């Protein structure tokens, strides 16, 4: 194998042509994983492979960078909703909500109960549809396409409900500082939501059968990409990934917002910290989300306005909050999603900084977990970490 080294004369020739020839040593080679690979979703990992093992992984993000934080500084407060929600595509309500929460805190608005109820419901629906999307991706990566087919079809039910409530299918542009943009379209919508929740409750058993109980899933994920508790905390891993290593941290419980203090739900925790644990934690959270939606529907939307009453809102483009700053975060399916907004008293925010959960588990953690893994495990690790590249790039 030593003969594989680049011959000297070839190297000399390459020098003359201003080219770079990489010395080949043994079986090592570089593999550019992504951005065209389906598991990576516009995200690239450069793998240094030794045979089938990964020696070193370097994350190369930035394919989706649009400079949101800079763009947000050039647009008025309300308008930014239409911009920032593009940070997290599968659950676009999360960036809307964190930004709105932070602005609410700066202005000092007490969001009406009805708006809070709607926001909670929308967030839970977004979580549910994002879970469905995750099942699709995960199922496809491990070769269980049937689960993906079902999940995509069930997700459409939520898309339809969103469409009726907000007027948009994927980008809802619905939650704004001070409330929401439209009222609930009527009792029919609530009935439909309840039907959907009931329907999906039955379907979760099917998912158990075909995906989570499946011999293939367990064989593919058990013992792959193991983290321990200390590692996860030092790397600021949040969400289901953190719960899979035994830390019961959930923003909805630890820093409650909206209606969550009044809701009763369980936080699933496993200790193993491997891919299987992450999958199972997610599976249990789906159950809990449906349970939360059920409770919300039992509670019923409180009466009252769905938007805060403030004379300043009349001149919407020129709305100016007072000086100040605030940090708000919510629990998304990927983890702890936060926004830090600084206002300098003008009609545009001075600085908006969004913390995407994948920023912590998508770069350093991924690089660490991929070390020593096999090539076939890369999609599994990517999907069980639930890496969302727009979070990193923004």
């Amino acid at each position, binding site marked *: 194998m030593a003969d594989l080294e680049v011959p000297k004369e070839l190297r000399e020739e390459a020098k003359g042509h201003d*080219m*770079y020839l*990489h010395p080949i040593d043994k079986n090592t080679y*570089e593999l*550019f994983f992504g*951005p*065209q*690979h*389906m598991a990576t*979703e*516009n995200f690239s990992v*450069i793998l*240094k492979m030794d045979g089938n093992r990964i020696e*070193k992984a*370097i994350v*190369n993000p*930035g*394919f*989706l*960078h*649009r*400079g949101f934080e*800079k*763009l947000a500084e*050039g647009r008025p407060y309300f308008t930014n909703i*239409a*911009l920032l929600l*593009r940070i997290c*595509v*599968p659950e676009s309500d999360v960036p809307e909500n964190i930004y709105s929460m932070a602005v609410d805190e700066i202005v000092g608005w007490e969001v009406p109960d009805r708006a809070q109820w709607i926001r909670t419901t929308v967030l839970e629906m977004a979580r549910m549809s994002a879970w469905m*999307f995750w099942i*699709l*991706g995960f199922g496809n990566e491990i070769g269980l396409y049937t689960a*993906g*087919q*079902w999940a*995509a*079809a069930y*997700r*459409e039910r939520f*898309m339809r409900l969103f469409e009726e409530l907000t007027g948009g*299918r*994927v*980008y809802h542009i619905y939650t704004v500082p001070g409330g929401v943009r439209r009222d609930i379209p009527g009792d029919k919508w609530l009935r439909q939501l309840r039907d959907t929740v009931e329907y999906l409750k039955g379907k979760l058993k099917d998912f158990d059968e075909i995906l989570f109980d499946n011999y293939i899933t367990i064989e593919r994920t058990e013992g792959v990409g193991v983290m321990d508790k200390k590692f996860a905390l030092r790397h600021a891993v949040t969400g289901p990934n953190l719960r899979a290593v035994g830390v019961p941290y959930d923003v909805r419980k630890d820093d409650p917002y909206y209606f969550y203090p009044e809701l009763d739900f369980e936080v699933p925790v496993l200790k193993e910290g491997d891919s299987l644990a992450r999958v199972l934690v997610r599976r249990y959270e789906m159950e809990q989300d449906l349970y939360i939606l059920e409770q919300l529907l039992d509670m019923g939307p409180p009466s009252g306005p769905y938007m805060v009453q403030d004379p300043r809102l009349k001149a919407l483009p020129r709305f100016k909050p007072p000086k100040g700053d605030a940090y708000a975060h919510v629990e998304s399916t990927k983890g702890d999603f936060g926004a830090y907004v600084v206002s300098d008293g003008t009609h545009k925010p001075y600085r908006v900084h969004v913390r995407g959960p994948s920023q912590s588990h998508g770069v350093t953690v991924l690089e660490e977990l991929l070390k020593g893994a096999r090539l076939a495990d890369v999609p599994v690790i990517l999907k069980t970490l639930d890496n969302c590249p*727009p979070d990193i790039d923004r």
Partner: protein
Amino acid sequence: MSEKKNDDFISYELQEFKLFEPLFRWARKKSLWIVAFCTGCGGIEMPPLATARYDFERFGIMPNPAPRMGDLFLITGYVTPKTLKRIIITYELMQDPKYIMIHGSCPINGGVYWDSYNVVKQFDKYLPVDVAIAGCMPRAEAVMDGIMEIMRKIEDGTADSWKRYRENYEYYRKNQDELFGEGWREKEARRWLAWI
């Protein structure tokens, strides 16, 4: 463009087989393979299309990761210069005939990122486009509509973006070089090699 190049690509549609051209077109229309390179946010509408709900496999459309086997390139949303490099390389890897469809506002005129320093404003300056659809995001049905339009255009022979790319290669190349700088292909490859 010199005539020699022109001859080159016309030779693809061989004179001897001209009789069968309608058959070829029909076959191309019925087996559009999509390069599964979903750039930007529109990628989120691809899974519903590919799966049970809208199911574009009914038309012989299939997402396929290998660019060499792909026919249809979907530019599903905004394109950053970093991605555009990969898109161009992937597009050039694809075999003729190949088609491009752009989704939504952003590739047409910059979209909501009209003032962003990192989003390409007019996609058709860099690569030729067959079909454009409006929407932000376009609904899955609208994407379907766009795909039907492409199929229609393939059948009557007006889907000619790949020919345009060959004919006006210098124009497109010039625009690409203006954006990325001369010799970006070689430089890019070398940069990543040096990185490891």
